[in-house]
């Protein structure tokens, strides 16, 4: 059996990749992609723990399913926002959206 730690390490690296995308990318859609990666990393953790640490019930998988659902909702709304912003501001680069900045 692959030890639990390996799954957790994988999850940590994916999470870091997603974090890098969120912190560094200029394109709004790219940021949303980063967020999706982070959520997936969390899901890996949940399911891994379910199998290794609490295999009696499927609670971890339930949690993961709910996370997937909510991620879908959030992606939908976020992308709608990006579209709306593009319509009025002609850009989706977050560092150029400064209408409310000083």
């Amino acid at each position, binding site marked *: 059996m692959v030890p639990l730690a390996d799954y*957790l390490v994988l999850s940590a690296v*994916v999470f870091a*990749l997603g*974090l890098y995308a969120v912190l560094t990318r200029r394109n709004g859609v790219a940021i949303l992609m980063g967020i999706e*990666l982070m959520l997936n990393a969390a899901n890996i953790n949940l399911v891994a723990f379910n199998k*290794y640490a609490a295999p009696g019930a499927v609670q971890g998988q339930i949690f993961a399913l709910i996370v997937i659902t909510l991620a879908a*909702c959030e992606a939908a*709304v976020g992308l709608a926002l990006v579209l709306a912003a593009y319509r009025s501001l002609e850009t989706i680069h977050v560092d150029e959206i400064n209408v409310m900045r000083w």
Partner: protein
Amino acid sequence: MTGEAIAFYALAAVILVSGLVVVSSPNIVHSAVALVPAFLGITGIYILLGAEFVAGIQVLIYAGAITVLLLFVIMLTEGGTGLRLQQRNEQGPVGASVAVAIAVLLIAGVTHTTWGRGAGTLPAYTPGAIGQSFLGTNLLAFEGTSIVLLVSLIGAVIIARKEE
């Protein structure tokens, strides 16, 4: 080396490589397309972990719906022009260092902890168990999630609507 181990490392490699493409490609469409192998790799991981139902949902929702949605939006906004613009903002190096640091800390944390083993085994047929759970113990979460779905559906439509 067991078969499981080989599968795990192969899948991990796929996920990591495509993840790298996602976060660093200057072409936004390449980024979006690279998401698909990443998600499929994660699906493989779920199957390895005995969560078949979750794996299926992952393919449907993530690799299917969300990726398509992302591509649509890219097409509708300037990303579809394929222009190679500067995709990294000014806090690139610092952001990279922070991400690396977080990863290092997390890995250090998990490798130095002894995780306990719980009792019992996963059910062989997980969809059944999940269904029982959703309509049993986790009913509230199920219903709540449904409402969130509904609301976000309506919200997204309203936000993305063309102004008359």
